[in-house]
């Protein structure tokens, strides 16, 4: 009788797990992300500037401003308690801010890099300095946010920019170094005007498909194989849920910025050639003189190592360091590997330069 009950209980348990798995697949993974307490200290259009709050004593007077990309959500940098880069930096005694570009609406289709780099970023920098009562700051750019930070640094190379940290940041868009994107975004196969004229902004789902198709097996199948494995073996699912939620939570990309990204970067590689201009101002990376830490992932399938490493030969800084980690694009910034490798590297590099 007891054996029967045990079998029946196991069966119900199996069905519960099965139901949970199916629910996750159908509804999408649910998780509480971006939990570190924060205060919005400035807004402009959809953009928000967060100041992260902590009880840890501030050790360094130079604040860190995180600049995220125009694609995907910025909460990857503050994924969940215990697995958050922001939380780590706060714990180390840094004063942390993040510029979140928000979700563009149809009215933002004309937003270009000029708007973001020449109007939004200088304003956010001023706000950070006033809020933290500092005279200098560190700019930390991730992915496209890194490319934007590099452009900002070349146009505003003097004070208040103290340090520049680049994570998975492409500057060289030579097609041979750019993987599948290099091929897909070539003039032969990609006319951004078709998308921009039709949709205004690049629809979120199209942007998501473009990224997911780089690794279709891992994104469309592998992720759910992992889910079933964790579920059936009753392993903690929090990390998977948060990560899956982020991966399946795309946002539209402003049309004008997308057009620039494809034409000026992927098709004409203007940044490396020194031909990039924002409102007539030439973006010359050799003008960057501040200390630079450039981090890239060996397994990154979105930003390849040569694309990121090229920055080192373009900038004019004397104090510059390039670190290649054994991680992918997202693994660089979150997960066990990031906690062990990237986070301490960033903190150790920044600490003496933030005095």
């Amino acid at each position, binding site marked *: 009788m007891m054996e029967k009950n045990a079998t029946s209980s196991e069966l119900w348990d199996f069905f519960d797990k099965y139901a949970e798995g199916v629910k996750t697949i159908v509804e999408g993974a649910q998780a509480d992300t971006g939990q570190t307490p924060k205060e919005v200290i400035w807004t402009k259009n959809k953009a928000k500037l967060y100041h992260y709050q902590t009880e840890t004593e501030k050790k360094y007077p130079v604040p860190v401003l995180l600049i995220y990309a125009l694609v995907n959500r910025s909460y990857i940098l503050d994924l969940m308690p215990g697995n958050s880069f922001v939380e780590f930096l706060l714990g180390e005694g840094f004063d942390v801010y993040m510029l979140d570009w928000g979700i563009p609406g*149809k*009215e933002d289709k004309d937003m270009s890099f000029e708007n973001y780099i020449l109007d939004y970023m200088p*304003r956010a920098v001023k706000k950070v300095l006033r809020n933290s009562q500092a005279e200098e700051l560190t700019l930390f750019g991730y992915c496209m946010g890194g490319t934007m930070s590099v452009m900002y640094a070349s146009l505003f190379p003097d004070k208040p920019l103290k340090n520049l940290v680049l994570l998975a940041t492409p500057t060289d868009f030579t097609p041979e170094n750019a993987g599948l994107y290099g091929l897909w975004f070539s003039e032969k*196969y990609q006319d951004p005007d078709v*998308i921009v004229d039709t949709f205004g902004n690049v629809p979120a789902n199209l942007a998501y498909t473009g990224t997911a198709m780089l*690794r*279709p097996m*891992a994104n469309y199948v*592998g992720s759910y194989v992992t889910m079933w494995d964790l579920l059936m073996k009753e392993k903690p699912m929090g990390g998977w849920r948060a990560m899956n939620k982020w991966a399946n939570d795309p946002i539209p990309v402003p049309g004008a910025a997308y057009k620039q990204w494809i034409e000026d970067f992927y098709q004409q590689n203007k940044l490396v050639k020194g031909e990039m201009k924002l409102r007539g101002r030439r973006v010359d990376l050799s003008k960057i003189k501040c200390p630079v830490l450039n981090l890239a992932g060996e397994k990154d399938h979105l930003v390849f190592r040569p694309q990121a490493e090229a920055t080192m030969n373009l900038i004019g800084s004397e104090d510059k360091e390039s670190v290649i980690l054994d991680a992918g694009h997202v693994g660089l910034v979150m997960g066990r590997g990031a906690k062990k490798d990237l986070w301490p590297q960033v903190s150790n590099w920044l600490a003496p330069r933030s005095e």
Partner: protein
Amino acid sequence: MSEGEKSRANTDPLELWRQWYDMSLGAWANLLGGNEETYGDPYGLYRSWFDNLRNVREKLEESPAETTNPYETWWQWTEATIETWRRAAEIGTRMTGLIAPRWMEIVGEAQKQILDGGNLPTDPLDFYARLYNAASGPLTKMTDDILRDEAFLEISKRSLDYYAIFDSIFRRASEEYFSNLQLPTTSDMTQTAGLIVALDDKVDRIEEVLEDFEHGYKATAETIDTLEERLDRVERRLDQLDRVESKLDQLLAARGTSSDGGAQTEASRSAPQEESGSST
């Protein structure tokens, strides 16, 4: 035969195997039939697989005991498949050339992974996990090959272009339809949102100017020192002015006194005269 008996007959592994086999053959025949022009023998792959699988089936039917051994069945199936795809690869048609080597890799790897330890996994989850582990690497390479293929990219571009045309027409028609119904459309909403964004931008610029004004006169130790020095200088001058003022007062007082004294002297001078005159 009753329905129940039929159903039981369908669960016979040999029968299931036969059904699956017939179905698969049909599917492959259809698929490969589309590439007739590129094949010397359009049904070459089909025939090859058919022959291999027929051998497997004959073996299974000759020794039904083996059908109860899933390990052996799986082994034979994969062997047949590998052999078939090896031949397909040799044929060297375009798409098959892309897919076949990877598919052989998948099947070969699957054979290793699934039969790891000499037994088929009893847990279905374990089975699928092993199958995924075996297939993911080669499948990723295979999809990568396809995604880089010129024909695929050409088709994708055209599909996107056609979809864009279709979407534009549909949007335009929807806009006109809802406008005629006097209902707000997406473009109306976008226009309103654009005005709000522009207003937000203006407010932000005003705020920036005010902040710059407020923080532009930020006192530093240096500016305070300079200011104190200037104040000292002003105070010193004020002191000088005080001294000058007091001197002026004294002078005025002295002048007043002297003018009073003069008057008195005049008065005293004239008084005796008057007195004397009057007296004279």
